[in-house]
């Protein structure tokens, strides 16, 4: 509850355990868990008579009665990131109009390294899955990506072009071999971890002409109603099936032209560029979304560095996520259907239920057997049957 400045914590195993953190009127900006699940990091606005007003991260420990503070964090999109193994935490800071990065050891919250970055306005940082490289990138006004080693040395910096709008999204591949950068010029550039140089770039044009790409198009089908079976009053199942439309995938013939929305030129934060990037867990696929073609998800084959599949939906894509175990992509478009794609094919799944369940976001369980579908007010858990391998 950001407005009231209170953070409430419940335990899943012990239902009567409860924790409440009151930040007072200090103003709670953000809150997140630490990877060991025993600390809560609250970013608050801090002030004291001597120092200038800035943000402060309070690390509340649930096991000890200790509190730690981290000064001058930056309230950017991704200011606090943890390594995959949860040992180190990187915090983006800004002091006197200069950006810094601090690296902390999560076991005792000790500062390990503190260094400045050559960015104008640090927008985001992200650890590589192997925990040894930290990527930091500038805001969209400047295309600049910096790579730092765990001990704070600058390994390399990458800049694709100078003046047009720059980086929109960044993703590491699970093996830390590749770093994908999605930018406002509707391209994804992939850097390799040995030389930190670009190995290829993927384009997202509105017309797909390559014969080797499969384009799946979502097609709506209204079910045929047999008038004999109509009964009064209509049963629930019948009602829902009458008015709900089913959709399925069809393969479109190449060349296909996708729905392209021209961005408004004189507005800030234009809806253009690659805004979503995700690598599959087995390092073989990359899913991207071009914001100027909001209804399509592009799946690239990383082994061949080629476009593999384009999924064209009827509504704009709200989010997608890869299964943590298999190369399986789940995406939602704000309708009550969740769509799954795997190299074997793709399927549209209707969420059963009354009324509209508009899926806004989804999240896989770490075992890959189930996922949580979230709408504005509700959430639903979807179980996937696993095929038995004999």
């Amino acid at each position, binding site marked *: 509850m950001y407005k009231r400045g209170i953070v409430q914590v419940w*335990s899943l195993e012990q239902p009567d355990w409860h924790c409440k953190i009151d930040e007072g009127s200090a103003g709670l900006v953000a809150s997140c868990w630490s990877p060991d699940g025993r600390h809560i990091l609250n970013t608050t606005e801090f002030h004291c008579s001597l120092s200038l007003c800035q943000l402060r991260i309070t690390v509340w420990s649930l096991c000890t009665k200790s*509190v730690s503070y981290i000064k001058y964090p930056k309230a950017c999109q991704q200011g606090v990131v943890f390594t995959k193994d949860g040992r180190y935490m990187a915090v983006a800071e800004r002091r006197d109009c200069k950006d810094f990065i601090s690296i902390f050891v999560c076991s005792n919250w000790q500062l390990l390294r503190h260094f400045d970055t050559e960015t104008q306005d640090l927008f985001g940082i992200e650890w590589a899955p192997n925990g040894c490289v930290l990527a930091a990138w500038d805001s969209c006004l400047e295309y600049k990506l910096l790579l730092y080693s765990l001990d704070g040395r600058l390994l390399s910096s990458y800049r694709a072009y100078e003046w047009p709008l720059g980086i929109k999204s960044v993703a590491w591949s699970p093996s830390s071999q590749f770093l994908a950068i999605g930018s406002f010029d509707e391209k994804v550039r992939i850097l390799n971890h040995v030389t930190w140089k670009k190995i290829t770039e993927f384009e997202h044009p509105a017309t797909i002409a390559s014969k080797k790409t499969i384009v799946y198009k979502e097609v709506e089908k209204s079910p045929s109603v047999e008038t004999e079976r109509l009964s009064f009053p209509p049963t629930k199942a019948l009602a829902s099936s009458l008015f709900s439309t089913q959709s399925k995938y069809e393969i479109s013939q190449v060349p296909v032209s996708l729905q392209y929305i021209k961005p408004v030129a004189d507005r800030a934060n234009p809806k253009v560029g690659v805004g979503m990037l995700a690598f599959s867990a087995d390092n073989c696929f990359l899913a991207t979304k071009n914001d100027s073609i909001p209804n399509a998800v592009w799946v690239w084959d990383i082994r061949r560095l080629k476009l593999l599949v384009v999924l064209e939906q009827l509504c704009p894509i709200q989010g997608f996520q890869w299964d943590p175990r298999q190369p399986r992509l789940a995406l939602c478009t704000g309708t009550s259907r969740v769509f799954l794609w795997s190299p074997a094919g793709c399927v549209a799944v209707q969420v059963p239920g009354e009324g509209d369940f508009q899926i806004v976001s989804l999240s896989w369980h770490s075992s890959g057997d189930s996922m949580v579908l979230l709408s504005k007010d509700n959430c639903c858990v979807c179980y996937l049957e696993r095929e038995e391998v004999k």
Partner: protein
Amino acid sequence: MGDWKTITVPVLSSDSKNIFQYTSERKRSPTSMNSQVLRLPLPSSKNMHSFFSAFCTEENIEQSISYIDRELTTLGFPSIYAESKGKELNLISIINCINELLALQHKNLRAQEEVEMQHLKLGSDMDHLQNCYAKLKEQLELSKREIVGLQERDRQLQSKNRNLHQLLKNEKDEVQKLQNIISSRATQYNHDMKRKEREYNKLKDRLRQLVMNKKDKKIAMEVLNYVGRADGKRGAWRTDKTEARNEEEMYKVLLSDYEQRQKQLLVENAELKKVLQQMKKEIISLLPPQKQKPKERSEDGLVLSDLEEDIGELNKENMWELSCETVREQLTNSIRKQWRMLKNHVEKLDNQVSRGHSGAWNEKDVISREDHELETEKLELEIQQCKEMIKTQQQLLQQQLTCDDETTLLLQDCYLLEERERLQEEWRLFQEQKKNFEKERRSFTEAAIRLGLERKAFEEDRGMWLKQQFLSMTADCKHSENVTTPSAFLRSSDQDNWLVKSTSQQRKPPSVLNGSVSAEPCQTSQYITHNSVESKKIAGDSMPNLWVESDDKEETGECTKSWEDSGVGTLLCRNLHMEQLP
């Protein structure tokens, strides 16, 4: 020479159309005469006579003669006088001189003609050249005009080009300028942003100070139930030691990551090296073998020896897994060399194929196009021939299988007739043989009968003789040849008995004999053999053997007699018995 004066000659008589041209004056030679002579050009044909008469008249004959003589001598001809200063003329020399003068005249005429011809030719050549010259001048004019036009166009295009270059430069300059503008504005914006950020911070701070409630400063947390730490340990104090430990751990993490990466790279490196080695070996194997011209052989030999050295070296070194610069360079250089050689070889082959080279190459692998074509033609011919053969054979087969019924019947009849005739012939032969055999058998039987009769008679005689002997012997002596005679007697008695038996057999009707022929002769033969065996046992002399044989003979004769009616079937038995006969 003497000088000549132009002297007017008095008008000649008769034809006065002479035109005398006085050409020149000549000095008189010192030896010249005082007479005045004229030299006149060749006159026209009309005035021949007048001309000739003009020179020499009756008055000045001598003078003219002497004049002529003088001229001729000066020209190199012999004098026309008989003697040096006499007045008699040498006719022969005159005629010779005339002849020579005529010849000279002819020569001069010819020379004149030639000169005129040449003159004409040169005139026409000149005309021709003048024409050519005129044409070339025209062409020159035209090309000059063209050049001017092209130059004009070239100038226009160049000016356009320059304009475009200029435009391009202008655009580039503009772009550069705009970029400069953008960069300067960006720096300005950044500076402004920073300033505003600072201002904003200050303002926020002041606002907070104004609005802040002191009570809210206390921020505390009460924990009712402590949750255990995730890893079960207790919290630790923050000391330098811990800091050092943190550093250490961090470096360990980094180092382990680097080591892992290095291992991966090493593995990749080793794989790539292996692949390169394999490639090198394969390239070497693809290159042409060493059986070529000596020049190339030497080159290949050298190269190959280098290669072998390289391979040897690299193999050794790979075993030790060195990865230093020199090894890498060696490997890549050798692969490049091999690849270049292979490329050259492939290019050579391409050239060969395109040129259709033949004859000079003695390479077994390389077949010239012509030879190849010849072979293909030959093969095609063979194929055609074989196909034709197959077709004809098929036709024949079809004829055989699917011809008309009549023809089949005819054919079958033909075959049957053939066979029938053959069989008939064989039957005839068979019948002939049968007749022959019959004849022989009859003759044999007759012979056997005669033999039998003779034997009978002989036996009777013998019997008689023996009786007589016995009687005589018993009368004379009793000890000698006792053994033989009684046996002989016994045998003879036996034989008599047997003879009686056989005759009794003969009396039986032949029909009965037919059926039982097979049984009885066997029995009799058994009996005979038994008898002979017995007789053999009794006496071991040759005499009883003879008797035995004769017994057999007799028996056979009787047997055959009885078997005559049975027909062909018993030929075999007869043959067997025939064999026993000597």
